[in-house]
């Protein structure tokens, strides 16, 4: 049984069909790329998976249970984490707190404990701090723990956003154009990073990306969207040669992608 199962998902905004009858299955250990020209509906797919939009019709199941209509924070709790196309960090919080915020989900203490400051509260806070630092150290951000996230470099901000998503302990990680705005060196580092995440955390990854080099080099399977419809799905080599994909990207004349 796939981890994430989209069945005939359609999203309409008024007269515009952003996604039409999409079927997409992601297994628990897959690394799947979602590509397509501008306006193909990639981000909309992310938004229905994470609960920002509800599909107009069709069903979404995650881990065997339907998630249609659940709120984004509930879906995050079920084990789907995401990053954003335009980085969305908590601008006034430092690096440590940005990641700590993601532990809110699992935080057992609430208002009363925070006010009463019981020993259990301190134990939990210490536990969270240890886990945050562990994560930051894995991604080489530990030395920036007290830095305001807006003063990090672009690449580090991207990385921090991924770390924050991982801190929710997801089963599925959605990355929305992580390579956008990166130079070739940063892109290579990102490719390594995604592989590393896959190996280390053993989670499923769905990647939306414009950069073909990144997608082709790391994805095991690629799904191509055009005008909201899935036009091809397969391994990178098959996709590279698929005439429909070439047409969608380059127009009619076949060329080397």
């Amino acid at each position, binding site marked *: 049984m796939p981890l994430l199962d989209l069945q005939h998902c359609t999203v309409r905004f008024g007269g515009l069909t952003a996604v039409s009858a999409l079927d997409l299955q992601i297994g628990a250990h897959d690394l799947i790329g979602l590509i397509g020209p501008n306006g193909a509906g990639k981000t909309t797919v992310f938004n229905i998976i994470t609960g920002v939009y509800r599909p107009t019709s069709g069903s979404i199941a995650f881990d065997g249970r339907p998630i249609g209509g659940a709120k984004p924070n509930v879906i*995050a709790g079920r084990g789907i984490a995401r990053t954003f196309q335009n980085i969305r960090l908590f601008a006034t919080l430092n690096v440590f707190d940005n990641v700590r915020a993601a532990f809110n989900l699992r935080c057992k203490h609430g208002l009363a404990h*925070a006010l009463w400051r019981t020993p259990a509260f301190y134990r939990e806070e210490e536990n969270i701090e240890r886990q945050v630092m562990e994560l930051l150290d894995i991604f080489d951000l530990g030395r920036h723990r007290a830095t305001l996230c807006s003063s990090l470099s672009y690449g580090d901000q991207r990385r921090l956003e991924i770390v924050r998503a991982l801190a929710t302990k997801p089963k599925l990680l959605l990355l929305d154009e992580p390579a956008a705005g990166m130079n070739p060196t940063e892109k290579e580092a990102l490719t390594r990073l995604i592989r590393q995440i896959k190996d280390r955390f053993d989670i499923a990854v769905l990647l939306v990306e414009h950069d073909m080099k990144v997608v082709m080099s790391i994805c095991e399977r690629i799904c191509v969207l055009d005008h909201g419809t899935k036009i091809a799905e397969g391994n990178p080599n098959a996709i590279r040669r698929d005439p429909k994909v070439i047409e969608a990207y380059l127009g009619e004349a076949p060329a080397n992608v």
Partner: protein
Amino acid sequence: MNYRHIKKFALLAAIILSAVVSHFSGGWNQYHLLIIITIGINIVLAVSLNLINGYTGQFSLGHAGFMAIGAYVSAYLSTEYGANFLRLFGGHAGALAIALLFLGVLILGGIAAAVAGLIVGVPSLRLKGDYLAIVTLGFGEIIRVIIQNTDAVGGARGYSGIANYTTLFWTFALAAVTIYVVVSLIDSTYGRGFLTVRDDEIAAEAVGINTTRYKVVAFVLGAFFAGIAGGLYAHINNSINPQGFDFQVSILIVTMVILGGMGSTPGVVLAAVVLTLLPEFLRWFAKSDLLDWLVRHAYQFLSPEHFAVAAAKTKELFESRMILFSILLIALMLLRPQGLFGALPRRKASR
């Protein structure tokens, strides 16, 4: 003493200090004492509003409304039922009985305000920014108008005959409690959630934070302490009337929060002190010899007839102290837009 307990220790120390200072405040000038107590009440108001406006980023203009609810509920309870309650202690109303009564009515006033906060909060928190500000402003005015038309609490004439229970001790002990609650709340993984709601709601939800719930908690808690402040205010002024809770009061509290620096508790406390003292200082300054002396020296190069005009005009300016108050505020906002203690970087205009 473990460093962990430093907050509780500071709270305890502040409460004891309030008690000690209060004990010796008997002989103080009543006018000065009133100003000091007003400072304490304003600290409670500003720090609690800072939880809503500063930390959670929900721009509320209805704090005076919550304050009014707390003031009227506690004043009504202590005036109508206070005597019965004290009779339970056998005729002689000891200090402890009065303390119990006062704390009880304050808390009930706070709870009433918190319930109002919940009722207003749940539907209106779907709104953002300016729209929320307008709805909360409207709410504050509605409360005022309802009170104005409620005969049981005197309507527009106001409600009088309220016992003078508010002391320096109660005011500053409760100010300390308010500060403790807000500071220790924010300093926790749970409390950091408030800041994430302010910084980026979409990202907050994406990491599993229930933003609606945080907003409601901020509103309810903020309203509770505004209600407490209202109770303190009612029991220092023999009578209260609806005009005392109009939207200018809300604006003044918002000014304290902005001036102090959104989301900085020390800054907001300082701003509450400064903004309470400043009008009183200007009042004194306008009549002081110091102003005479300054005017004499500043205009000494003028001819006698010009001097007389300039001196009179200057004094006139200082007598209309609210104008000067506004000018000072504008100057402060120009010089320090992030507030006195504002640690926040300036927000992008687009958000």
